[in-house]
Every structure is written in structure tokens, then in C-alpha cells.
């Protein structure tokens, strides 16, 4: 999976080299953060750290009780 993540990195670098878009500091920063997320997430899945993590826990903690309340009260 990490190799596939590197394809996204390669695609973005190829765009920088071939298209040569004019970029501000923020453009570089956001692109690098997103590519970092791609590789980092791929590493987490590849190394099986994946099943022990639940990054959606905060969303579930906030919204699941409210939705369940609606299901129970309609």
C-alpha cells in the first residue's frame, strides 16, 4: 500500500515538474500536508496499527448519542 501512496506523491511531483504551476507558500504547505497524510495513513494500514485506531471516535461520541435518541423517540 505504501508503494501506491508513493504513486500519489510521484503524480504530484510530476505535476510540479511538467505543468510548473505558480504556487504560493500555502499551496506548497497544504499539498505537502495532504501527501504526508496519504503516506502516514498508508503506513498505519500497512503496519496493522489500523485496527487499534479510531480517528472518528470524537465524531461518534458527539453525534451517535443524538442520532440514537432520535431513533428511540420517533
Amino acid at each position, binding site marked *: 500500500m505504501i508503494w501506491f501512496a508513493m504513486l500519489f506523491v510521484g503524480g*504530484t511531483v510530476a505535476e510540479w515538474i511538467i505543468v510548473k504551476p505558480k504556487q*504560493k507558500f500555502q499551496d506548497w504547505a497544504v499539498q505537502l500536508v495532504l501527501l504526508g497524510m*496519504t503516506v502516514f495513513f498508508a503506513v498505519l494500514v500497512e503496519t496493522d496499527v489500523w485496527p487499534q*485506531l479510531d480517528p472518528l471516535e470524537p465524531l461518534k461520541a458527539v*453525534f451517535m448519542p443524538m442520532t440514537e435518541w432520535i*431513533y428511540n423517540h420517533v
Partner: protein
Amino acid sequence: MNIKISRVQLVFLLVWGILGTGTITIPFAIARFTVRDGWIVALMFMVTVVFAAGIVWLFNRSFPEGSLFDAFDKAFGRYVGRAASLFGVLWAYVFMCMLVRELNLFVEVTILPKTALYIINFSIAVAFTYAVYSGIEVIGRLAEVFTIVILAAYIVLFFLPLRVADVHLLLPLVSSGWKPILRAAINPDISFALELIAALQFLHLVKDRNKIAKDVLIAGTIITAILLMIDVMVIIVLGPASTYLAFPGLEVVRSIRYGQFIERLDTILVMIVLITMFLKFSLFHFILCDFLRYSFNLSSAKLIAIPAGGAVWAGSLLLFKNGADLQKFMLFVTPVWFTVVLIGVPGTAMAAWMIRKRFIS
């Protein structure tokens, strides 16, 4: 911005923006709670459509010029507006991951059981990333071209099983009361229908913005009609068995058998569903990239199409461990979460703008 999409393109984008995954997941979400009265849930979809069209109309009336993001700037000021739009970024990112995970579950079950999930995800991520990189007008044209084929295929595939249908399965009406019907309506009629509010993203991109609320109504009516057709077929062909199936719509098409040659048409449905999913993913990936562009003051949304596609590709596997986890999230988190983001953010913007106009200006 000079790029514009026509009203027809917007309507088709909205239709497939809901039905892209809705065709396969809405009958499942309904069948979890009710079987015989599922068609009533499909009809009730129209209630939220009217509500969503109302929000779009009000928003366009409050901010008659500029884009959704110009409206955020006006209502909240530049910095708070950008901070508020981070809710949109988070929503669009998790939503995209959810959609891609839905696709790989569907593809794994139906056509590629032995292929690694990340390869399935990668194939679709490349496709929608390229579509967004090409621009919204390309996505609009694709929606326009594919719609004729998709609609024709839906009509043929969902009417052919009539031979094995039993209309009596629709009766008696409301036999278990309204409770299961209302419970079944929570996911499709809130989470899915509110996605129509995504039309706000196209305020400055559509040729005639004053008719955008009408376009949402038209799209909602088409979606309701298609959902009604699919759900009635699920009820009269599969009956109570639909409760135990992950993809009831697909099973309906699998039941087609005429003579020795016309059978296994579910492959055609899989292809059609994948096209509609591609349109949906392209639409919401565009929205994700555009929200990122605004939130971080980037030069263009196109620049981040590829890296954001990568983040969605990897995130879809990291955030949702398996089918059960995804279904739980879809049924028990998205209804309230979508309500808060899709009604809360534009609603707060309108309220803030009213207050600013009245007391500050």
C-alpha cells in the same frame, strides 16, 4: 470565475450526487427497519427535498452575488469565515472517505472478491482525481452524457424482474404502525436528502443562479421517482428477504431470468452503479478541494486534486475498518452530523449576515 455549468448539468450532477451510492445503500437502510412500507420512506424523501430547496433559495436571496465563500466572508469576516469553512473541509473529507469505502465494499462483494481493497480504491481515486483536475465543466458534461445511458439501464433493469414480482407483498399498508417507517426514513431522508444543499457550492458556477432552488426541486423529484421505483421493486420481488441483504437492489436485478440466455444482468447494474459513483465522487471531491482552496487561501482547487485524492484513498481504509463499522457510522452518525453541518453552517451564515446588516452596517 468564467467557468459555468448549465442548469441541466447541475440537475444531473445533483441527481447522481445522491443516487451514486443511494441506489445501493438506501434500499438497505430502509429494509433494516421496514419492508412492506419502504415505498412510503421513498416518498417522504420529497419532504426534505423541499426543505433543502428552501435553504438554497433563502441563501441565494440573502447573498444574491458571489460564491458560497464570498457569502462566508461577508457574513463572518475573512478569518472567521475561513475557520467556519473548516467544518466543510472535515465534512467533505470524512464523507469522501465514507463514499470510497462504500464503493470498495460493493466492488469486493460483486465483482472483485480477491482484489486488495487498496487497489480497488486506488483505481477509483485515480479516476475522480483526474475528473476534478480537468475541472467542474468536464464533470458536468460527463453527467449529461452518462445520464441517458444510466436512466435507460435503470428502467430496463428494474422493470424486467416484474415477472417474478408479487404485488400483494405491498399489503397490508402501515401494518406495523408509523414507527418503523419514520425510523427507516432517518438515514435516507436526512443524510442523503440534505446532500442536495451541496448545490450552494455551485451558486457562482451555474448559468442562472436565480433558478437554483428550482433545480434542486427538479433533481429531488427525479431522485424520489427513481428511489420509489427501486424500493417498490425491492419489496415486490424480494419481500421480507430484503432485510437480510447488503445490496437489495442488486438482488432484484439478479432475479431476472428469461429463457436460457437473459440472466445475470446484475453485471450491467454493477457497471451502471460504478459510473454513478464515479460522478458522485467527482462532485464531492471537487467540493472538498474547493473548500480546502478557500480555507487555506490557495491559488486553485486543481493544485490539490491529486494530494487530496491520495488522502481520501488512504483515509477510506483507515477510518472505516469493515462493512459493519461503515454501516454503523452511516446509520447512527451521519443523520445528525449532516444536519449540523449542511443546515448549521449556511444557516449560521445567513443569521450572522442578517445581524451584521441590521446592527453593524
